[in-house]
């Protein structure tokens, strides 16, 4: 137990901070993913073929290629791409982006592809009459979506989004390869310096189980809230 003590003697406070980091990266990545989904879901549903194709390429490539490969692309290619853009504006110094930004962005793009599919499915399973009714009521396009489609879409999407959240949370463990100190990286450091990998990796597993368990509880509550009246 002294291995987990808080302070200089144990790894308790380090692991606690690492857990917060995992939560922070997961939430940031999930939000970035929603951003991507907000762009690509309309494209997926669009009748214009080329837009449709662009969205399909995005979801197919991301869901068919290992997460680790995407992370390596961002880890090795991220600052290169930014420096290329900066050099077009005449800035030629070396730019390094921090691991948190690279990591959340890489995981965010992955999570966005899954979210896009979930939102597409949810919108497609809303009754057609709802769209027509919204139009007939004379609502503006924005109001139609915001007041009528979105609430119904959320109710249908929440169970599947909870799966996306679980995937995203577990994928953050892969960012440890870029050196960001989250649960996995911290356990690696602790295991290396104490020569007790069995204990620290098992403890990491317990932390992840705790996170998935608690977030499921929270999501179930949301689910109940959004399915009022059903």
């Amino acid at each position, binding site marked *: 137990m002294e291995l987990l003590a808080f302070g200089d003697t144990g790894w308790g406070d380090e692991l606690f901070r690492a857990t917060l980091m995992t939560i922070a990266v997961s939430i940031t990545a999930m939000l970035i993913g929603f951003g991507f989904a907000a762009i690509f879901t309309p494209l997926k549903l669009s009748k214009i073929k080329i837009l449709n194709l662009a969205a399909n390429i995005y979801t197919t490539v991301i869901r*068919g290629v*290992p997460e680790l490969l995407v992370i*390596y*692309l961002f880890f*090795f290619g991220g600052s290169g791409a930014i420096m290329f853009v900066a050099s077009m504006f005449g800035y030629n110094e070396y730019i390094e982006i921090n691991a948190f930004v690279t990591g959340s962005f890489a995981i965010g793009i992955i999570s966005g592809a899954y979210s896009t599919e979930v939102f597409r499915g949810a919108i497609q399973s809303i009754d057609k009459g709802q769209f027509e009714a919204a139009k007939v009521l004379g609502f503006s396009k924005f109001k139609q979506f915001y007041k009528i489609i979105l609430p119904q879409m959320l109710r249908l999407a929440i169970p599947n989004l909870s799966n996306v959240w679980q995937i995203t949370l577990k994928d953050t463990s892969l960012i440890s390869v870029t050196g960001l100190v989250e649960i*996995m990286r911290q356990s*690696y450091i602790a295991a290396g310096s104490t020569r007790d*990998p069995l204990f620290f*990796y098992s403890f990491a597993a317990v932390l992840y189980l705790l996170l998935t368990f608690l977030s499921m509880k929270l999501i179930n509550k949301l689910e109940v809230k959004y399915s009022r009246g059903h």
Partner: protein
Amino acid sequence: MDFDLMIDSFPKLLNAAVVTLKLLSVSLIVGLFIGLLFATLRINKNIFINKFAYGYSYIFRGTPLLVQIFIIYFGLGQIEYLRSTFLWVILKEPYWCAIIAFSLNTGAYTSEILRSAFQTIKPGIIEAGKSLGISNKIIFYKIQIPIAIRQSLPAYGNEIILMMKGTSLASTVTLMDLTGVAKYIISTTFKPIEVFIVAGGIYLFMTFIIHNLIKFLEKKYSFN
């Protein structure tokens, strides 16, 4: 765009894809047996057996695959007793550690897929078997299992693709699979985009093949 590098690295990456396919196929076969075993435990009426099987799938589905590989590869070697048994011959090899981790992981997901397939079998089918005087054992092997396998094909197809992506983690325990070689080439040439296109293309091709294979099987074994 460095096309020479892309052409140059293609054969290397293709060779590495063979390692990926080997890891995938061995893990899937072992994982299918584990999944079938635990799915039957899940539909068992004994509450302890039931809870045990549920706990297994809960733990393996609730933790990242990376943690599971690290516990098996780095963690188990720490137990002195294991080092003296014949198991050590297996556990000191990263290849077998990766296979054990992948099999247990895909076994957990497969058990859930098969369990829900078992539960959707209409009771009438089993009753029909009973009324024909077929023994319970034969009903299970000849009626329930084939129907469950057919029912779970679409979900299992997804699991195969997820597992194929999962094998990329073998590169974290020094194995040179497709992702491992891709990372090596990226870190020596600093040309991430070119290598990503080639390696990603090979992965997508494999996804495409698996996807169509499952579709073919679904059609072949469809009920109507």
